[in-house]
């Protein structure tokens, strides 16, 4: 079956398109409407993971504060399209501004960290992420910018003219709910982000990112302006984060600092690591799995109630436990991720091959 499709890429593409188009209806009919919302979130996380993948996967800069850019995009959307300041700008004006603002902050936060590598970079970016969250938590005084921990409410939904995605609309007698409508919007954005990420990977800049990831000194000796190239990675990643943030704010209608904690950053990083760092299909798989599986675990609570009469282990605790175990198992048995690029897979499973090859080449020289 797979070979059959591989030989007919156009047919495979059409099948995937039909499947993606029908997915919310299949899921909605089979599992209930709440699962369509889970799909929407999965798409948001795909966007975030693809954005962070530029920074971590392509350029090798371990960023633990990525959620700060998500927060900036979300808050900017709330400022420009909610009763808070009485502004109600249309989404097509707000989303680009939010993405741009996040991109600028990407450069601002990236600049002081240029000399840092690895663990040190991770710690500093982690700090930045927390700073933004704490700012949002406390900027309700002296001027009320963010409403503090209460969060911002009544954020405008995405609307095309009078057509608001927050309402259920009827098409040819079919009722299509808001979750479905957002699904298609998010899907369109995911496709754009995916396209950009793919193009970047194969570009001159993509190669420069790969070079600084592998060896910064050698990269600069090749004539790569490592400072600019790194800042560009931060900016591109942050832009995608800001975009996802704006969409999140519009979709939820409510945001608060709680949504932008450290756990969120770590979760997005885990999606990349689990899926396959640097490999776009892998990153997408990781993001979908890590959004959908925790939701599925909620059923464990119902199941316990049915079997034991009470909830012995809180599904939320179980989630972290299983999650930790899954990560450990991954690192032991599949460090390259679930769906890695061919290169990375070979690299991590090639230890024996290298040893053999190494001794062979020494004999070569002798002979």
């Amino acid at each position: 079956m797979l070979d059959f499709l591989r030989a007919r890429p156009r047919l495979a593409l059409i099948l995937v398109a039909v499947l993606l188009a029908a997915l919310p209806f299949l899921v909605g009919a089979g599992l209930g409407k709440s699962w369509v919302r889970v799909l929407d979130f999965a798409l948001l996380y795909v966007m975030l993971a693809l954005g962070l993948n530029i920074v971590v996967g392509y350029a090798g800069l371990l960023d633990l504060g990525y959620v700060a850019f998500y927060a900036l995009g979300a808050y900017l959307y709330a400022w420009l399209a909610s009763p808070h300041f009485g502004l109600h700008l249309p989404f097509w004006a707000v989303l680009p501004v939010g993405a741009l603002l996040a991109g600028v902050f990407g450069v601002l936060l990236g600049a002081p960290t240029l000399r840092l590598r690895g663990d040190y970079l991770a710690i500093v970016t982690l700090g930045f992420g927390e700073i933004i969250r704490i700012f949002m938590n406390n900027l309700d005084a002296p001027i009320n910018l963010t409403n503090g921990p209460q969060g911002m409410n009544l954020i405008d939904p995405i609307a095309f003219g009078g057509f608001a995605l927050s309402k259920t609309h009827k098409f040819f007698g079919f009722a299509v709910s808001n979750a479905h409508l957002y699904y298609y919007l998010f899907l369109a954005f995911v496709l754009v982000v995916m396209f950009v990420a793919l193009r970047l990977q194969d570009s001159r800049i993509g190669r420069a990112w790969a070079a600084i990831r592998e060896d910064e000194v050698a990269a600069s000796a090749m004539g790569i302006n490592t400072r600019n190239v790194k800042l560009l990675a931060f900016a591109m990643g942050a832009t995608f984060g800001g975009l996802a943030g704006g969409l999140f704010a519009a979709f939820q209608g409510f945001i608060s600092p709680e949504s932008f904690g450290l756990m969120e950053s770590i979760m997005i990083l885990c999606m990349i690591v689990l899926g396959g760092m640097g490999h776009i299909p892998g990153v997408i798989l990781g993001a979908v799995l890590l959004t959908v599986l925790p939701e599925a675990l909620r059923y464990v609570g119902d199941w316990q109630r049915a079997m034991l009469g009470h909830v012995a282990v809180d599904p939320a605790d179980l989630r972290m436990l299983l999650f930790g175990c899954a990560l450990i198992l991954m690192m032991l048995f599949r460090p390259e991720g679930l769906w890695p690029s061919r290169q990375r897979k070979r690299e991590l499973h090639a230890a024996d091959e290298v040893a053999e090859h190494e001794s062979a080449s020494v004999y070569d020289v002798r002979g």
Partner: protein
Amino acid sequence: MSLLEVKGLNIHYGGIQAVRGIDLNVEEGELVCLIGANGAGKSSALKGIVGLLPHGGQVHYAGASLKDRPTHAIAAAGLALVPEGRGIFARLTVAENLAMGAYLRRDAAAVRADYDRIYATFPRLAERRGQLAGLLSGGEQQMLAIGRALMSRPRLLLLDEPSMGLAPLMVQKIYETIQAVAREGMTILLVEQNAHLALQVSQRGYVMESGAITLAGPSAELAADPQVRVAYLGE
């Protein structure tokens, strides 16, 4: 005027002075070596020249000062560094590594011709062009690092300890290639701990000891110098 002219180069690491005001120059077409024991400051001097370390003193290349210019701009001016420990891009393929060497070049047709030239010089790399560079043996990685540097069509090639960590026979092979590259007219500054080999292939040499140049002259004379023979050639 020399292609590379270094005057009073000073490099500090915190309070420790690694290079103490050294002078050296490299003429167009020459192979010059800078030898010395481990920790003498040879690599630091080279890093200073290419702008990887902040330094005092003067560095002039083809008449223009390199001082305070970032490494990537120095590379663009025609200096190619083969870094200490080779610095290959382990998770890129051999061909991709070579392509990175030509990162600044826009003449696609000439770049393609240069691939063939490099593959002809290093047949081993041609065989493994699709393989990840990190999976090559140490000697092959060194060949790749040299090939990658040549891909930028440099005017001056700077080699930092090309013999480091290699089996003696592999070292011999690397040095044969360095000689071949020099015969084609490449100007080379070679930093090397293996004084015996370096003095064999070079025309002139500098001997460095705790941050200062203590001896300089034609390589044959240095190789015959009793001081050098005792300290560096193990006699």
